[in-house]
């Protein structure tokens, strides 16, 4: 007859106890296996970034050495100075910050105004105009470059900040996103504000915008990433280091430092660092911004 235990008032047989033990062991083995799998995948995902950082700290001959140096025992920081100064990465960084700031601030302002009109005001052709905004989502920017280049050249904006930023100062997606958020503002609040003598502008700034803050943050992240990562347009609309953005500057740096791969790698780190830092600080907002289209619709 099997031994019986009484645990917390429940009778447990020896067999039950063994089975429970086996389950604990199996769970522990499972956990180890899961960590192992997660760690292997993490290494695979991170390896290109890791080797980039390592190579930026080596000399070109060390980079070419086989087997490759996987840990910099004697790091040199010269490549960063070269990329930053002679490679103009400092200039490109400033240009990217200026252009991105212009675009993000302008998109938030224009989208807020448009979204407010669509959500709170009544006027003829409102539906039609809203469809016009949605229609812009159907036209990929790549399709407009031929004439936009001509327009920008004719306006005298070729190779200027205006040329880089002006085509992107409004966003149909942003207006759509913020309109959804504004529609969630309770009608009672509007009535109460009207009784307090609030006009539309005061209500927008004091009530609607603060209530829509999560959507605003999501839009800010979304337009920031879009503007910061642009490639095709800055490539065709700039011609020298004065206005080239970080992405196009990196292309230029690689072309001019073919015999100094370490400088190229240092340039990559400089180009990636701002977003990496923002990712760590604003992970939550970033996730919300990136999934604004996917999850909220």
């Amino acid at each position, binding site marked *: 007859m099997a031994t019986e235990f009484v645990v917390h008032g429940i009778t447990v047989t020896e067999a039950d106890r063994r089975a429970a033990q086996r389950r604990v062991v199996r769970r522990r083995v499972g956990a180890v296996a899961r960590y192992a799998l997660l760690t292997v995948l993490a290494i695979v995902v991170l390896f290109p970034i890791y080797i980039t950082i390592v190579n930026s700290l080596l000399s070109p001959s060390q980079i070419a050495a086989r087997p490759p140096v996987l840990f910099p025992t004697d790091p040199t920081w010269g490549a960063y100075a070269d990329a930053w100064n002679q490679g103009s990465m400092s200039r490109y960084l400033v240009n990217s910050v200026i252009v991105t700031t212009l675009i993000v601030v302008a998109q938030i302002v224009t989208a807020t105004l448009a979204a407010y009109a669509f959500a709170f005001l009544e006027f003829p052709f409102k539906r039609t105009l809203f469809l016009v*905004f949605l229609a812009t989502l159907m036209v*990929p920017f790549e399709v407009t470059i031929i004439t936009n280049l001509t327009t920008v050249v004719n306006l005298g904006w070729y190779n200027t900040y205006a040329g880089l930023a002006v085509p992107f100062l409004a966003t149909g997606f942003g207006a759509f996103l913020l309109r959804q958020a504004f529609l969630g503002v309770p009608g009672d609040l509007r009535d109460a504000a009207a009784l307090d003598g609030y006009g539309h502008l005061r209500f927008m700034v004091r009530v609607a915008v603060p209530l829509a803050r999560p959507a605003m943050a999501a839009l800010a992240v979304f337009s920031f*990433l879009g503007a910061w990562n642009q490639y095709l347009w800055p490539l065709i609309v700039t011609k020298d280091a004065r206005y080239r953005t970080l992405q196009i500057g990196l292309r230029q740096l690689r072309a001019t430092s073919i015999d100094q791969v370490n400088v190229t790698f240092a340039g990559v780190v400089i180009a990636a660092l701002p977003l990496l830092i923002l990712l760590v600080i604003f992970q939550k907002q970033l996730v919300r911004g990136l999934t604004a289209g996917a999850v909220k619709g």
Partner: protein
Amino acid sequence: MTATRFWNRRRREAGLGYLMLAPSLLVFSVFVFYPFLRNFYLGFFRTPPFPGLPQRYVGFDQYREVLTSSYFTNSMRVTVLFALLTVPTGIILGLLLAMLANQQLRGIGWYRTIFSSTVATSVAVASVIFGTLLNPQVGLLPWLGISTTPSILENPKYALLAVAVTTIWQNLGLSFIVMSSGLQAIPDEIIEASEVDGAGSGLRFFRVTLPLLSPTVFFAVVVGSIVAFQSFGQIDLLTQGGPLQKTNVLTYAIYTALRGEQNEGKAAVLSVALFLVTLVLTIAQMRILERRVHYGD
């Protein structure tokens, strides 16, 4: 309230509405709708071989010529192949990582950050990293025992695959984030209920998780395809459309027609084609979103 006051107020409200839409509408007219419509028009004119000569009206001849040329059909084939190589793999990998990271394990936050980390890489950053790592002189592939002649990015057989791998890696962070938020939106009770019902993990994935995740997956397929059809930076930095046009995706073909050949007419016809493809994909996306709005999030 007297009738006049009512109408005055309505008129003022309409005026304010139009004023608020005006900044966005101005940008859209000049930089979205005008260049978009002008593409169709430009397609009717043949660009002269030497600048300065007048453009010649050729009706639909240029459309017929470009759209039946091997330059275009090859480019379409390459673009579709590129989408097929990148989109499903990217989604499956993102989903796999999301499921692994969606467990209650200590330190799982670190893994989540690592798996999201490639959202911080722009197309330029990812392409310069992979371009250098795949380089036959300084790259790591020969050391890993993978060497092809000609080298991988100059090899008609493997160049597109290499560009696809770069793209998948760059988009993995985004795919992970989107799939994770999709998974987290599934109520725990549903998963628990299926566990109680004795569904094994395989059955649970295909019968419970995947169907509930299908809107997210569909969305990712459509958006991923649109993004794939607009890919440009990785081609410009890795292969310039070569070797033998094996990586000449549609957007790069437009760029080459515009900047390399200075042929606006040809570039315009190609842009119209890119628009039509994107239109089909966007309509599919809206259908999916609409359905999701009806069933509620």
